[in-house]
């Protein structure tokens, strides 16, 4: 018989070992379907690693893919810290993207130093507004935010499609449902010319550090942690539970909105309905891998992005479906969840004595 005995304290090395071990376990588990599909396992993994980080160009591509994941990962991390189950980062991302083209594709004519911040703030507010609705319903009526945020994703995506087929459709796009391109003044500059990597990454890292400081060093971060860990006791102690939740909604939705702004203004240049291949949902995986730590979100996002980019490149090279990337991500999430269990509990094998 197996018993789980709670650990009194989880050492730091164990937390790190579990994260690394989970990644390795995920790769080992992926080897099984890979081998079954007839691919040479070792060279497939080699191609994956090379595709993700084998060259400066490959790694830059991974970082480009990691940028929106850092934003959505942070959005999930701060929300989950406060036990606000925001499953709607995907919709908030599109709300931010929509705001980006609404403000940055010709409505305002400002110098870049002004237009970029205006667009970013607008995108963050749009994402936040979309999350504050379910937060309000949760606080006021006890509505389950999982359901509301999840369903709002579809509402938002359909709204974007409507806008792209209608009022926001670019006349010059030969009938494709896409928006007008954002102005050069609203575009996030490239970090290195010739690569797709843009300043969105720097912004994402700044956000991660800022969120870390907020959570650990500020009064509001304290209140957010208190509300998340035990809302009853926080209310009893007179902490402003509603305001803390509203702040969490503002931050979480805002960060997801920034993911959309960063993708549109930094990478694509215009909005289409397939802007995000599920960055909002992948953010939940990133945040979970990072154990909800804002700084941990950065490596977790790079890892997930690397898996996607590497699997893409590997599947092109040896002709295996790139769904394998989804498999690696899913298996790493499972491995991490199991690893988290190992970190919190000690497993004891009890031999059942027979009387």
């Amino acid at each position, binding site marked *: *018989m197996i018993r789980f005995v709670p650990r*009194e304290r989880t050492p730091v090395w164990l937390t790190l070992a579990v994260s690394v071990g989970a990644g390795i376990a995920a790769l080992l588990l992926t080897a099984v379907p890979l081998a079954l599909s007839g691919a040479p396992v070792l060279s497939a993994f080699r191609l994956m690693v090379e595709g993700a980080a084998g060259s400066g160009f490959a790694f830059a591509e991974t970082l480009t893919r990691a940028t929106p994941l850092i934003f959505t990962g942070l959005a999930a991390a701060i929300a989950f810290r406060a036990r606000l189950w925001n499953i709607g980062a995907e919709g908030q991302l599109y709300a931010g993207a929509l705001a980006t083209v609404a403000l940055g594709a010709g409505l305002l004519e400002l110098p870049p130093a002004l237009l970029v911040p205006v667009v970013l703030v607008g995108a963050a507010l749009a994402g936040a507004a979309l999350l504050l609705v379910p937060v309000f319903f949760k606080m006021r009526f006890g509505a389950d935010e999982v359901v509301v945020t999840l369903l709002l994703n579809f509402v938002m995506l359909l709204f974007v499609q409507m806008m792209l087929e209608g009022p926001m459709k670019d006349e010059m796009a030969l009938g494709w449902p896409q928006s007008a391109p954002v102005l050069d003044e609203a575009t996030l500059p490239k970090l290195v010319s010739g690569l797709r990597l843009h300043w969105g990454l720097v912004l994402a890292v700044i956000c991660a550090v800022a969120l870390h400081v907020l959570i650990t060093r500020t009064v509001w971060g*304290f209140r957010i942690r*208190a509300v998340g*860990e035990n809302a009853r006791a926080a209310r*009893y102690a007179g902490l402003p539970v509603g305001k803390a939740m509203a702040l969490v909604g503002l931050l979480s939705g805002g960060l997801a909105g920034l993911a959309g702004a960063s993708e549109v203004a930094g990478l694509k240049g215009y909005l289409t309905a397939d802007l995000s291949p599920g960055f909002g949902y992948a953010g939940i995986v990133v945040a979970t891998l990072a154990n909800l730590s804002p700084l941990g979100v950065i490596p977790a996002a790079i890892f997930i992005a690397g898996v996607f980019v590497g699997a893409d490149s590997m599947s092109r090279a040896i002709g295996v479906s790139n769904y394998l990337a989804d498999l690696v991500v899913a298996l790493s999430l499972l491995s991490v969840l199991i690893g988290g269990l190992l970190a919190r509990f000690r497993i004891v094998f009890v031999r*059942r004595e027979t009387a």
Partner: protein
Amino acid sequence: MIAPTAPDQPDRTPHETRPLVLSLAGVTKRFGNLVANYAIDLDVRAGEIVALLGENGAGKTTLMSILFGHYVADEGTVHIADAAGRLAPLPGGSAEAALDAGIGMVHQHFTLAENLTGFENIVLGTVPLWRLGFGTAAARAKVARLMKESGLEADLDVPVGRLSVGEQQRIEILKALYRDVRVLILDEPTAVLTPQEADSLSATVKTLAGKGLAVIFISHKLHEVLALCERVVVLRGGAKVADRPAAGADRAMLAELMVGREIPARERTPSTLGAPVLRLVGVAVGAPGERDRLETADLELRGGEIIGIAGVSGNGQGSLAALVAGLKAARSGICEIAGYPATRTDPMTRIKAGVGRIPEDRHRDGTIGALSVAENHVLETVGSSENQRHGLLRRTAIRARAAQAIRDYDIRCPGPDAPIRALSGGNMQKVVLARVLERAPRLILAHQPTRGLDIGATTDVHRRLLAARGRGAGILLISEDLDELFALSDRIAVIHAGHLSPAMEVAGLDVRIVGLMMAGHTAEEDA
């Protein structure tokens, strides 16, 4: 069926002929460096009522958990008599094995499914779930027989969530009896009962023991232990320090055995009464039909006095406490705190008005388990200028003040940064006390301030509350523990079914009258 045979009785003594049903020898259990149980021997005979005494952390819970299969002993053996009376080793680490062997336990916090009826709870686990409600005649008959034999009365056909605490406890005991237990462990069974209910429980336990059931009775209330039990076993620091007949023992002696030192007597000095700090006139709290609502309360609490609120939980104490704590507003009537009307539902305005609140449930309301001792210490005051500057936490100052509180209140913990859930209940409560009392509140709400605490921690809480009274604070002490109420209060009011009685002077007050009032009789009709 095998006919019962005479069991082996190696230590048959002239006056001890009852067969052994349970025998622990040399039981040792370690958690890391902590020795929770050390070489404990314990024999229990059929029909014997054995008291197990000890402070929190003395090893009672660990020992019972080993017995009940939640833990496995590192060393030592546990033998239990089988149906034929022969002692056989109990397989360790299996609750099912313990149940099969005839060990039943009634936990302090009941383990009933509140949405099932009493009968369903009793048979739960003995029949497949899908058969509940079918073919239950035999089970019915057995429960009826058990109720008749034991004198345990309870309504079996309503969801147990609607039953009183006393009835729920009787269901728990019936649940154990239904499984044909030979050893019944009662963990703090009287903690939640009125004196009358406790008396009736004692009678039941004696009846059951008379029929040969062995009972292990865990309690903090020494007078009950002395009245009910034949033998007293005292644990301290994981080891057995006494195992003696109850006859000839007295409370002071047992308390000292448990604590390992002399217990200082509580000192209640006369104090001067100050201005009213809490005035309730015709106050009602909670919507009609709501559980635990307050229908009518009239009360004037002045600085320098302690008013005790006696009553069984769920009779309106929750609403009264919520009103004073600022979690609820009065539906009607006047509530004045420190001379000002308290109309808003806002804990922070109460805190700022000088109300110190010690909540009933320190785990759910009083502390945040994942946060550190220091963070819990500043939970109510984190927004004040001594704890933050421009929205940034003054972490050094917060830690330093927590370290000071740890010294002042003798909080046993690894340090200010330790998560508070790592602390024992008593030390957790000391953090709450430090948080509340350091602000020198004018009105203190102490809701069950010593529930679940051991003698040492309880004495400490009492001493500090009396010191606050001496300083001029008015204290509203809500408790189910009559010993505590009589020891601390200047006046006592009884709450029953939402009605608060006038406060009566403690001097000359008969505990029986309070008990009857707790059960719903008025003072006049029974005086």
